[in-house]
């Protein structure tokens, strides 16, 4: 019963994440870097200390989670899940990387804006296309000609 309430608390995960992160950092500093002495610290000493402190803070967050009663809204994901929005926002910059690298700034910008605009619930293909085209046009002219960015507007190849 106790555990069942605990795993539904948001702070259980928040604290747990910090404990894991802190522990990993501390172990990694001991294992892979030289600690040195307190007088002459090696590269591992400072991260080792931070890792220990972070683990401790994480444990405190966990402790607070145990001590407080379960709140009303403790689910980690928000009530209305925007999978499409989240996916599109992440896909935008990824497409910018791919298309920018291989085809130039204009196609990269176009794809980035077009796909991320589709993340909005009310977005239409036509509206997103117009937005993407205008941002790509203005943006690439601004950066290539006005700000002299070395990013070519169009290119082809790998």
């Amino acid at each position, binding site marked *: 019963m106790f555990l069942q309430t605990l795993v539904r608390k948001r702070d259980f995960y928040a604290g747990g994440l910090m404990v894991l992160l802190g522990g990993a950092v501390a172990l990694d500093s001991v294992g892979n870097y030289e600690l040195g002495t307190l007088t002459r610290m090696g590269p591992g000493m400072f991260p080792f200390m931070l890792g220990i402190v972070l683990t401790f803070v994480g444990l405190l967050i966990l402790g607070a989670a145990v001590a407080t009663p379960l709140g009303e809204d403790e689910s980690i994901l928000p009530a209305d899940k925007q999978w499409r929005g989240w996916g599109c926002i992440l896909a935008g910059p990824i497409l910018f990387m791919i298309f920018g690298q291989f085809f130039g700034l204009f196609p990269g910008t176009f794809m*980035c804006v077009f796909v991320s605009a589709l993340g909005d619930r009310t977005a239409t293909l036509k509206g997103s296309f117009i937005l993407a085209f205008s941002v790509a046009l203005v943006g690439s002219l601004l950066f290539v000609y006005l700000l002299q960015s070395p990013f070519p507007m169009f290119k082809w190849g790998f």
Partner: protein
Amino acid sequence: MFEQALTDLWYGFGVALEPHNVMWCFVGVFVGNMVGVLPGMGPLATISILLPLTFGIKPVGAILMLSGVFYGAQYGGAICSILLNLPCHPPHAVTCLDGFPLTKKGRGGAALGITVISSFVGASWGITEMIFLAPILVMVALEFGPAEICSLMLLGLLAGSTLARGSPLKGVAMTIVGLLLGIVGSDLETGTPRFTFDITHLYDGVEIVALALGLFGIAEFMKSVNQYSEITTTYSHVKLRDLRPSRDEFRRSIPAMFRGTLIGSLCSLIPGTGPTIASFMSYATEKKISKTPEKFGTGMIEGVACPEASTHSSVQGDFIPTMSLGIPGDAVMALILGALMIQGIVPGPQLIKEHADIFWGLIASFWIGNIILVVLNVPLIGLWVKLLMIPYKYLYPSALFFVCIGVYSANNDMFQVGETIVIGLAGYLLLLLDFHPAPVLLGFVLGPRFEENFRRAMLLSRGDFLVFIKHPISAVFIFLCVVLIAAQIYVRLKKPKVVEEFELDTGGKEAPVPGE
């Protein structure tokens, strides 16, 4: 000393009035004002996008412009709060409480007029404070050894992480994450690559632009997508002549303005209590001392004047610890420090002496910028109101493009766009777990200097931890740290009456967009 300050200020005006510096200042406040008005875009994201573009210009111009964005955005944010009841910028969330009722009564224009005046009053006081206080702080700080610097940074980090919004424990956790991110890259003394996962791109460390844009760009967009409903603009038709407050409104606002200014300047002296806390506190105070507290929330002009004045006085005051000690109070200041470091300038007490043009030029430009803002806001109010109507669905895709190209231009390196995406995703996960990402940036910027001074202090004391208590000045800072922690525990466990009343007064109103 008074004369010295005036001579320095005179010199500063000489620097700030150079044509290209005036231009950068204008660009900064204009862009700042614009993004301040746009719902869903904050000064943090904007400064990070503009940061790579400033690499090419001289340090003075770069800093003037980036700072201009910050205080310019404060002018814009008020418009959003008063006319639309949208608390999109945290410091202006309380302005909604009385600003929007005023708009409904048809006095929105007057409220905006009062806002402009109070902002200018608050800002002017903040600047004056900086002129006289910063040199004194510097005189003291120049005597500091590594142990003192270390304790001072510890105090700054602790204050910055625990006094911001949200749980103090989580704030501390985020600061440590920031410090750890600052470690990534080659070790300063031995050159050993640390936490780079054998990726050569990471040998120079995590790029500050990528970190800021991931946390305050991509993560924010993921949080806000589909959250902004249609904006109702029924009340927001404001014409130029509406801006003039009536004689009675003006008379009532003046004392409120000065009280707000005072509270704001007090808040700015404590690191970590930025403009948001200042504005909330001043609203609560104003309500408390008013003869008609029950009328607050129904359109009291004092409820607009006081928080706005305190926001601006604390925004300007925020620059004091940043520029004189090199300790930023919040994420925006951390970014400005980052900009200085990218330009090859070491922040700290020696800055005023070694780079007098930056310091005094910046102060002088604050005045020039604030005057530009007052002049700009009055005739352009119609334009800003139109900007308010740009829907978020057009805004964030365009902003994403600027995020991508901004990060790319930092080093002309596509890898950094990928870095931003990863940081953005991680930042969103942290947001979902109720972590506020602002202290990450604080820790990240201070991290390397903190480690360096810590190592040096330990070397000088031959590994004796007590060095931090043995030096008197350092002991004071450590004592303040302990007081801070004790006060936090007390507030959490006991919840004294003052805090409860304060939460009640401001209606517990919280802004939808965090990260300031």
